[in-house]
């Protein structure tokens, strides 16, 4: 009997199986959304937008969409898993079994990151294909290590945040409210579709308080080699956000109720 790795890997495997069983909802639909964004904003409208450094708009958009896919899917994976388990009652199993809070968080978050990277990776390859067919050349990756670091740390932040929100939520409505009124604005205003350089000074200053700006620009730096924010600063903010959300998630698991709705 092994109480360290077996419970962790069991829960990790369960979470992967969970999202793979509803692959249309968890992977295919986000892939279609990202493709539509690329077609409409990147390929169609993007041709008329000129950025500094002579970068095509499509190249600016692809990193943003990749990170948006990762963050959204990581959040959705942990939050919907916990909320649906609260509803069906099997969240109680996690508490009754000898699983530790750390095992639960790591298993849920790592499975969520895997889903985020899967959808993000597909988005990147669709973006690469679009770029190739539009400009006749591949976009490439300037800093692979930095790219992976920002993708994984950012996804972990959102997976942890999903755990916190799901334990806090008392209904599906509350979960949707956080998703629609907090996360979506933060993602869209974090520079997925536009550069903060183009914002009026006031809004540019406000945007600097949005941690998503740093995560998205970290990925942009990883792919393009240029970004609106210095990569070191972006890495520091992302790391702090990761530590904060991990702390909150652990606190939640130690204190929150696992009982069914």
């Amino acid at each position, binding site marked *: 009997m092994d*109480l360290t790795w077996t419970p962790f*890997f069991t829960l990790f495997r369960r979470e992967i199986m969970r999202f793979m069983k509803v692959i249309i909802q968890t992977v295919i639909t986000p892939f279609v959304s990202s493709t539509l964004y690329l077609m409409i904003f990147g390929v169609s409208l993007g041709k008329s937008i000129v950025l500094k450094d002579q970068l095509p708009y499509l190249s600016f958009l692809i990193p943003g969409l990749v990170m948006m896919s990762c963050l959204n899917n990581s959040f959705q994976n942990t939050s919907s898993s916990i909320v*649906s388990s609260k509803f069906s009652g099997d969240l109680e*199993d996690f508490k*009754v*079994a000898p699983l530790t809070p750390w095992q639960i968080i790591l298993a849920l978050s790592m499975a969520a990151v895997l889903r985020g990277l899967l959808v993000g990776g597909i988005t990147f390859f669709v973006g690469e294909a679009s770029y190739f067919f539009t400009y006749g050349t591949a976009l490439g990756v300037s800093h692979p290590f930095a790219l992976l670091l920002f993708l994984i740390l950012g996804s972990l932040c959102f997976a942890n945040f999903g755990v916190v929100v799901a334990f806090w939520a008392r209904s599906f409505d509350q979960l949707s409210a956080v998703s629609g009124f907090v996360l979506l604005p933060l993602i869209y205003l974090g520079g997925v579709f536009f550069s903060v350089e183009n914002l009026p000074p006031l809004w540019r200053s406000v945007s600097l308080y949005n941690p998503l700006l740093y995560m998205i620009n970290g990925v942009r730096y990883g792919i393009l080699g240029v970004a609106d924010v210095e990569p070191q600063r972006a890495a520091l903010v992302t790391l702090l956000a990761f530590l904060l959300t991990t702390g909150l998630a652990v606190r939640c698991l130690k204190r929150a109720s696992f009982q069914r709705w």
Partner: protein
Amino acid sequence: MAQNANLALDVSNVIMQYPLTKALAGVSIEVAPGEVFGLLGPNGAGKTSLISIIVTLEKATSGQVKVFGHDVARESQLAKLQTGWVPQEIINHGFFTVNEILGFHGGYYGVRDSKKRVDELLNILGLWEHRFKKVKQLSGGMKRRLMIAKALVHKPRLLLLDEPTAGVDVDLRKRLWEFVEQLRRDGISILLTTHYLEEAERLCDRVAIIHNGQIRAVGETRKLIEQWSRKKVVLRLLEPVEGYKNHPDYMSGQGSEWTFFTKMSKPLGELMQELQVPMGNLKDLQVQDGNLEDVFVQLTSATKGAH
């Protein structure tokens, strides 16, 4: 190692205070290894609250719960390894099949390869043919059996059955009783909560009656029945008589039919002598022993408690 490690379950002075109500007001019970212990009480008596504390879903306001000597609050992992829990409500598990659910549950308890154990339980509990079905595709009885299989997959030494036969048909109820008796023979200690007093009377070595968060009585099932219930004696006579209404055991009746409630331990001959019934006038005599239901009613009805 804590004291009383030889007890399967040691609940000591547990208080559970919610903002508006006290669910448990100093509950203490002990379950010996291999014993089937019944916890009986009306709805809202505190049965499920106590089980929630044992399985760590809730934290007691004060008091201590130990499973085979391990404090559920301080040594929760060790206590959890010894405990299997069959909840009152069915858990749905959404996406997963019976096989997957049992495999996962074994994994949570550190069982790396649970296939052999899962197959064994699927066969014992008659779920083998349904192992690739999802919970929603199972009948009510199958769902209940799946809950039991889940609780047993890590081979616990203490099994908590929270109203396992609620809402199941007579046939399945009997099969579950047989299964509980099999578990008893295997040496598993069982804490059973139930509304079916016949079930408790048949299965439990000892029972505790809980009411308003307090244990009203605890002891061997037979002894509790003898102590707290009364046998009903119906006397039918050929010729009517008067004067029995003043007898302390008199319950109802007059003339040629009288009903008495007497202590279980009181011999019938003693009652007959007290009543001085001429044998020639005796038409019929019916005796009905008390049962657990009488004990339950006696101890849980309002503030009455005396016998």
